[in-house]
């Protein structure tokens, strides 16, 4: 156990708790805040793994932008508060399925990458390489993603905007 690993474990536990909180909280705002914590812990994990660029992007975009978006969404839709209004009737089924998934995934992970004797990860690094790659090999996906974002943007505006009169 290195110090980095300790830090990761703390972050991960925090993040995990926050994640569970996100999906179980009875108050929408609480849920959103839990989400902030969970996403931030993921960002911290990235940083701990040495992926600085991705880590900061995570923190800025998710914590900074997306969660705000969620909050706006919650306010606009006047989301009510309370277990019944947030959770559906299939909590049990959902829980069973989720536990199964978790067990399965952990099983697979443990089998494929046994904990005992697993080597410590080196730092991911490469933030500079990312910049280069983004505009050389990855220029095509980059352009494509920009179209996805553009489409999402335009489409979201069209759908979300309040029409006066004619257009359905």
């Amino acid at each position: 156990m290195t110090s980095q690993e300790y830090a990761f474990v703390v972050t991960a536990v925090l993040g995990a708790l926050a994640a569970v909180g996100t999906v179980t909280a009875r108050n929408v705002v609480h849920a959103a805040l839990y989400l902030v914590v969970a996403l931030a812990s993921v960002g911290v994990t990235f940083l701990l793994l040495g992926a600085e660029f991705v880590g900061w992007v995570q923190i800025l975009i998710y914590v900074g932008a997306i969660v705000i978006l969620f909050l706006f969404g919650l306010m606009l839709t006047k989301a009510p508060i309370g277990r019944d209004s947030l959770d559906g009737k299939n909590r049990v089924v959902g829980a069973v399925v989720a536990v199964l998934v978790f067990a399965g995934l952990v099983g697979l992970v443990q089998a494929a990458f046994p904990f005992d004797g697993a080597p410590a990860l080196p730092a991911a690094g490469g933030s500079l390489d990312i910049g280069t790659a983004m505009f050389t090999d990855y220029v095509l996906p980059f352009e494509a993603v920009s179209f996805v974002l553009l489409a999402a943007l335009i489409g979201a505006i069209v759908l979300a905007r309040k029409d006066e009169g004619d257009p359905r």
Partner: protein
Amino acid sequence: MIRLPLVLTFSALLFSAGIYGVLARRNAVMILMAIELMLNAVNVNLVAFSAQLQDVTGQMFALFVIAIAAAEVGIGLALVILLFRNRASINVDEVSLLKW
């Protein structure tokens, strides 16, 4: 440093929590949040493997996933708002006009 299985386990937990949220939450925005958790789980994997393999590909991939996730959130919220405007409710279990 950090051992891979630990990271992967964290990711699995995020992913499972997300699945639970998608299945159990009735509020559409909550579902969107749960999905974000799942996508983040993926990113955790990608970055961890990127570190293990000492290759930026994983990180690149993660960046694209983040971008796409942002787009999805935008689309999702637009749909939710649209639904809310027409129904004054965003509980997905009440949305079952279309069936059979």
